[in-house]
């Protein structure tokens, strides 16, 4: 693959010094204890490279995961580390420049999906994906996010959805789906035990997932609702690196759940939505959440296990693509497998599966950043190869964003497989 021409985007009309100051100020806020441990610990062994789909696909050294946070590390050593005074006094580490931040924009946004596979390969167990997430805060503060990702996040903040799925559009969609599929689509009930949240990708591209969620909830006999106050769970604030927007988007969901007295919030088939609410929601709001949070695959697994959801078995073989944020980084690796087992499917694992699964290439906001398409497609070849090798009759995942990556890869390569939805599969097989 030819290396793309260097390109970086800028937002706002600030001066260079102001951009660098913005980045440094955010970096300094993020140099907490855990980040400090990791930033002190890298031994430059390079093992993380072999875990990264972008490096494996291209063999380009710059895609080595730990290299992607080099300016963040440089800033830490100069400004916050235990020997920062010496680094500054002797100028052993130079101050981070605007040029470096611009150069690293591609590495932090285009070539990292924050899938976290590198942590498993690192002898020091450094959470590089977590550091990339922190470094993005500084990039956003500097007005140095990829324009398309920035625009999606901005739209999500202003309109409630990165894809134009505004409350009005949502209402119209739900009415149409209820009518078309003869299933109640509860919107804005005053009280419900379960708040069902969605991803804009589902609303706009995979509306059958909404129908499937409704069918499953009705089948299991839950009192449930979708809320127009907070329905979009894909947190583009988090993906773009804007902490304030991340908090706003989280708060919308939490307020919606509290307003209808929900005991449980079910997150959609979206990996980063799980990360944003399940593992970061309480932290960004600074208070514990007064309800349980489950990814839809966990919800299905729990309800299949206790018999509340009953399914008709299906004789087929299936390969499952693990969404990184739900499985490897979310701890719910076994949930979809329990559901597939309940469906009687023969699970054919890929060569790297479960916690070691390769990312689809579109996570972390990469799919919302079209300039990364060529690189993403290259990395997608790993997925095609591994899934083809299973010989499974069908392929399923539990993330609409992953499905979008697969659909795009399928179209790009003319690949003969279609990535399905675990939720839709369950809804089709309800007994």
């Amino acid at each position, binding site marked *: 693959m030819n290396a793309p021409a260097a390109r970086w985007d800028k937002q706002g009309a600030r001066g260079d010094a102001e951009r660098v100051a913005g980045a440094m100020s955010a970096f300094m806020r993020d140099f907490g204890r855990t980040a400090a441990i*990791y930033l*002190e610990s890298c031994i430059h062994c390079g093992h993380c490279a072999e875990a990264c789909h972008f490096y494996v696909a291209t063999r380009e050294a710059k895609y080595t995961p730990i290299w992607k946070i080099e300016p963040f590390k440089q800033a830490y050593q100069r400004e916050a580390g*235990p020997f920062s005074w010496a680094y500054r006094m002797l100028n052993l580490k130079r101050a981070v420049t605007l040029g470096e931040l611009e150069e690293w924009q591609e590495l932090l946004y285009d070539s990292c999906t924050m899938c976290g596979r590198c942590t*498993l*390969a690192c002898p020091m167990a450094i959470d590089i994906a977590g550091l990339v997430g922190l470094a993005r805060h500084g990039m956003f503060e500097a007005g140095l996010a990829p324009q398309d990702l920035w625009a999606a996040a901005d739209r999500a903040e202003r309109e409630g959805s990165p894809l134009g799925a505004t409350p009005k559009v949502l209402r119209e969609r739900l009415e149409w789906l209820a009518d078309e599929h003869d299933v109640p689509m509860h919107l804005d009930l005053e009280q419900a035990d379960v708040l069902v949240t969605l991803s804009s990708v589902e609303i706009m591209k995979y509306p059958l997932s909404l129908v499937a969620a409704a069918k499953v909830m009705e089948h299991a006999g839950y009192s449930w609702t979708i809320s127009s106050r907070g329905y979009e769970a894909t947190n583009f604030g988090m993906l773009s690196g804007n902490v304030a927007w991340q908090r706003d988007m989280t708060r919308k969901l939490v307020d919606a759940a509290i307003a209808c007295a929900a005991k449980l919030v079910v997150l959609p088939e979206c990996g980063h939505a799980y990360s944003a609410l399940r593992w970061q929601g309480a932290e960004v709001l600074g208070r514990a959440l007064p309800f349980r*949070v489950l990814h839809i695959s966990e919800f299905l697994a729990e309800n299949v296990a206790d018999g509340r959801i009953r399914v008709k078995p299906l004789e087929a073989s299936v390969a499952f693509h693990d969404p990184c944020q739900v499985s490897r980084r*979310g*701890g719910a690796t076994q949930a979809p497998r329990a559901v597939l087992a309940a469906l009687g499917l023969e699970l054919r694992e890929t060569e790297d599966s479960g916690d*070691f699964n390769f990312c689809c290439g579109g996570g972390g906001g990469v799919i919302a950043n079209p300039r990364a398409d060529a690189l993403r497609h290259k990395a997608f070849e790993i997925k095609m190869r591994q899934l083809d090798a299973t010989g499974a009759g069908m392929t399923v995942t539990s993330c609409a964003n992953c499905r979008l990556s697969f659909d795009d890869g399928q179209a790009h390569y003319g690949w003969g497989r279609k990535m399905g939805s675990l939720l839709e599969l369950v809804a089709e097989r309800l007994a």
Partner: protein
Amino acid sequence: MDLLAFARGPALTFALAVFALGSLWRILGILRRPARRELSEPRSTATGAGAARAIASHMWHAKNFRRRSLARSLNAYAYHIGLAIVAFGFMPHIAFIERLTGLSWPALPGWIFVAAVALTFVGLLYALMERLASPVLRLLSNFDDYASWVVTILPMVTGMALLTLPLASRYPIAPDRPVAVALHLLALELLLAWLPFSKLAHAFLVFISRGATGAAFSRKGAAA
């Protein structure tokens, strides 16, 4: 004061003090940073066990990464084990530690020592070659990597120049070649003084870093 007396006296005291205080400073410098309050409902509260598991499991590659990283990892083990044997299994070194601390233990057979020396030299040379040859390692490497390599191999090189007596002997307090012994000691002291400020601090950071990930990820029930 001759060079040997200097190396055995003030230089050794200084190096040990820098090693201890520098290491403490680095650890405290990390721990003083603010810690995030974890408020999400944990999937598991056995974070101590998670930390211990990660410390153990990252000792070796998961099978998914083994094929591509095997040679580098085997080599790293070779020179780490080799260095440990040379440092703590050789009679003159045990005698040196005994004079400092009063602690002693039996030396390893001479052939193991010789094998360890060979393994360490070959391993360190291979590591350097790989660092220079691999585009990934070349990109990641900085002054610390090369300086740490030199500081690690110096005691080995200076030590080789001293191997004049049978391997199992304790070596006299007043050696025949005091300058060579002094240089060997000074090389060790340089290593001790350099360690806290360099990547060699992974000697203790490895437990902190793996432990932090193990604890945080086990809280989520996630793989570490």
